[in-house]
Each structure stands twice: as C-alpha cells, then as structure tokens.
C-alpha cells in the first residue's frame, strides 16, 4: 500500500521529473573564452578571466551553496599546471535530476583536484597566442564532451 502511494505520489519529485523528460539544469563555469563563445547562446555560462585553480575555487563556492559537479575536475593526461584553462559543469541547487555523485562527494573531488595543483609545481606560463588557442581548443573539446553527455 505504501509502495503504491509512493509511486503515485505527486511528491515523488524524481519520478515527476523523469516523466517530464527534462534536461539537467546546470551552469558552465569557465575561464576559457572559447567555451564561453561556444555555449553562451545555448547554456548558462559563468565566464571569469581568472586562473584554472581559481575556477576550482569558484566551483567550491558553488558546491558549498548546494551545486553538484557533473564532470571531473581533473584533466585526463594533462597535469593541472600545464593548461591555463578549466571548465566545469555544475548542476544547479534547485534541480532534482539524478547526478553521479552527491554534493559532499563533489566537495571532496574539488579538494583532491586542488591538491594536484600543489603536487605538480612545474608551472609553465605562456603568452604565445597560438599555444593559448591550442589549450583553449582542447579544453573546449573536453567540455563539449561533458555538455553533450549532460544534454542527452
């Protein structure tokens, strides 16, 4: 009886949401102008001209306000200090669609990722425009993979 009630309950928000067939509501936090330009018209983009590490800090603030990470804060096969760009997808607090991890796990992932910045100290800063564009392209490609997954 209880089961029946839960299944049909208008307060079972998750099921209601799935029936609506809606998308996860998220924002893209980025310091990459190419990501901002690509998604500005179709998604909520929070662009800031700050360092990649500071982007993780901003994500941490969002997570402490109830947001949840949708993509991994570490790159694959690029060390944290090797690229000046980072883009993160954060599910908004008011959204109730499923996520892979919890708010607490999101916070822990960010702490781990920030730790990686301390581990790799061979920082390379560049003003080479062509090189900066290449870093932007790769960050855009990785972010686009996450956006495609979030939007399907």
């Amino acid at each position, binding site marked *: 009886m209880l089961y029946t009630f839960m299944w049909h309950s208008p307060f079972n928000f998750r099921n209601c949401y799935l029936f609506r067939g809606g998308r996860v509501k998220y924002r893209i936090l980025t310091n990459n102008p190419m990501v901002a330009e690509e998604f500005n018209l179709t998604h909520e983009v929070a662009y800031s001209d700050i360092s990649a590490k500071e982007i993780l800090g901003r994500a941490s603030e969002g997570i402490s306000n109830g947001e949840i*990470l*949708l*993509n*991994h*804060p*570490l*790159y*694959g*096969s*690029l*060390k944290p200090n*090797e*690229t000046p760009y980072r883009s993160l997808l954060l599910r908004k607090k008011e959204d109730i669609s*499923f*996520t*892979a*991890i919890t708010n607490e796990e999101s916070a822990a992932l960010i702490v*781990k990722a920030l730790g*990686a910045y301390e*581990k*790799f100290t*061979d920082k*390379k800063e*560049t003003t*080479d425009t*062509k*090189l900066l564009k*290449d*870093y932007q*392209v*790769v960050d855009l*490609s*990785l*972010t*686009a*993979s*996450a956006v495609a*997954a*979030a939007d399907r």
Partner: protein
Amino acid sequence: MRLEIGKINITDIRFADSSKIEGGVLYVNPEDLKPVVLEDDKLKGVVFDIAKPGESVRITPVKDVIEPRVKVEGKGGIFPGMIAKVDTVGSGKTLALKGMAVVTAGKIVGFQEGIIDMTGPGADYTPFSKTLNLVMVCEPVDDLKQHDYEKAVRMAGFRVAAKIGELARDLTADETCVYETCGIKEGIEKYPDLPRVGYVSMLQTQGLLHDTYVYGVDAKQIIPTILSPTEIMDGAIVSGNCVSACDKNPTYIHQNNPVVEDMFAEHGKSFNFVCQIITNENVYLADKERSSNMTAKLCRILDLDGVIVTQEGFGNPDTDLIMNCKKIEAEGVKTVIVTDEYAGRDGKSQSLADADPAADAVVTGGNANEVVILPKLDKVIGMLDYVNVIAGASDKTLRDDGSLEVELQVITGATNEMGFGRLSAR
C-alpha cells in the same frame, strides 16, 4: 575464435624505385605512398624518412605508431571500420611485419609531446627505438582545425600501414603463432578446473587528442562490451590519441597488447582466458559511473574469478581505474590493476589521483615525473618548435648545450600502462 599471426621479420628499410619486401628488406618508394596520404585534401604535403635503431635521430612530435599487417584468410581486413569494412575480425590468418613500424608525426597542437630517440638514454625508455621506423611527417592545408588535422594524420597513418602490409600478402611467414579462445560453454567444459580470468582494457576517451576508436566508433559512445582478444590483433582498436606520450596506447601497442600476449601464453595452463572487456574513460561523471557499473556486471555475468585491468593516461582516468577495481572486487572477482605513477619529480607524492583499499594488487609502469636528460642528437625528424612547452617539459627544458631536461612523460611509451615498456618501481 582462432587467429594465426604469421610474422614476417623485417631487417632493414630502404628507399628504392619500387616498393616491395625482399629478403626481409622493406623497399619503399615514397612516390608510391604520397598519393595514399594526399588523397585526403586536408593534407598538402608529406615527408617520409627512415629512422633505424642506434642512429643519432630524434623523432618528435610523435602522434601514433602502427605495425603494418595484412589479412590473408578469414573475415574482414585490417583496421575494420576505419580502413576495411566493419566485418568482425580476429579469425583466420594475418601477416604482420615485425621489427618495423610506421610512425606518424605532425604538430597538431603546440604542447603535444611524443619523443622517440633512436639512441642515447632516451632510447632506453621507448620501445620504438628498437624498431625500424618509417616516419611520415604530414603537413596540413592552411588554417586546418586541430580536430581535422588529428583525424587526417590518424587516417593517413592507417592507410600507409595498410598499403605496406599489402606488400607482404604473398609472402611466407618466418614464424607463426596461433591464438585461440573458446566460447563460454566450451571453455567451462574444456578447462573445468582452471580459474576463469578476463582482461579489462580501459580506453582513453575524453575529447580532442584523447580518443580511441573501436571498429570505427568513437569509444566515448560505447557502453562496455566484450571482444575476443584476437580482434585487436587485426586492428579493431586504434588510437586517436596525441597525449600523454608516455602512457597513451599507440595503435601498435593495441595490435601487440602485451597483457593479451601473456594471458594467451597461460591460457589453458594456469587459467582459462575467457575474454577481453573494453570500457572507456569519459569526462562526465555519470558516464564513469555507468561504465564501471557495466564492467563489473559483465565480470559477474561471465563468472570470472579474476581480471587484469589496464588503464590509459592519468588524471581523471585514475578515478575510472579505481571505480572499476572497487566495483569488480565487490562482485567477488579478484583484480590486478596496471597503471603508472605521477608521484612528482622526487617520487614522494601520491602516485594516483584516486585510491581504494580494494586496489591491493597493482603493477606500475614507472613514475612519469622522473626527470631525464636527453642529449642533443644529430638529426630531428619532425620539429622541436615548442620543446619548452610540451607536456612534461618546463622552461628549463632546452639547455645551453642543446640537450633536453624532461620528464619521462614526453617519451612515447615510456611508462606504458599495458606493461609494454620495461620500467617498474622498487
């Protein structure tokens, strides 16, 4: 499935007027190969060169390394879904040109690494200093996007390798190895007392410069599935990876997967090698969750007693590795994971970005942050334009005497996570 690999030993590569294989020597006329490369209108030029073991030659930036093969019996052709039709491969007979490789080079992005030294201390770290290398440096048309350049170089490499493989079609193999796997029921009946062991192969699938293809499909899009390990010997898995050089899996290493080779050596003796499971390493956290769930489920459904899990790359793929390990162990299936380490230049930091007590059997390919000095060599094939900014380098990389101070990360295959190299840790 039963596959014979006939090995044609190549002892030298020479440029010549006509392309052929004779007496173990590969004769190549670059004019025969140029049209094969330039049929893609995104490439406007290609330069072929030969690098031999022991020569004072540095190849960089390396994109992929490929072993030429040709399918002479059985369904399909080499590189199904990429070059040949998408027939299921892995049975019949395939000839492989051993002792040589096609190496593709081209600066797709500025920070792209990938160094093969044919002599000196760098040569000790890369498996491809021991192969005769036919190197192709591809020049893109003006203003070509990085995505298109990567694809053009990737596909040109496969076309050239397939063309060279065809030269061996009518040759007699110097040596033949037979690889055979059983069906599920057949294996249980044939080896009732042996443990059932599988191989979980993680494929890097993150986006530009970080992709892998299975039968022509971008592996980002797959859910974990089962292969006969003989399929990869016919090129069912190919690399679309440019970074990170030390621990990406070039196509050559998929074709010659050492885990598969060693597991076949024990198949029917100490265990029953049931199958290869492939999974991906995506950036999206829900994808990581889904793929590791499916991988663990497959291990359980197949009633495996144990698996070897190999990784590709580092950083967020460490999370996939640990998720796979933890969930497979939770199904009661023992795991051994094969990875490499980013333990800092002094080797004192934590090696992986993730960890779990379930990961209690680990094989390491070495510390990618270890610093080595690569002396100046007489000849560079490719270009050293951005040597200070490549991944694994620093602003101190190019030294006054022309030598390079770099981390092992820049060297192709140095800390390979399928165990293709010789490094480990004490």
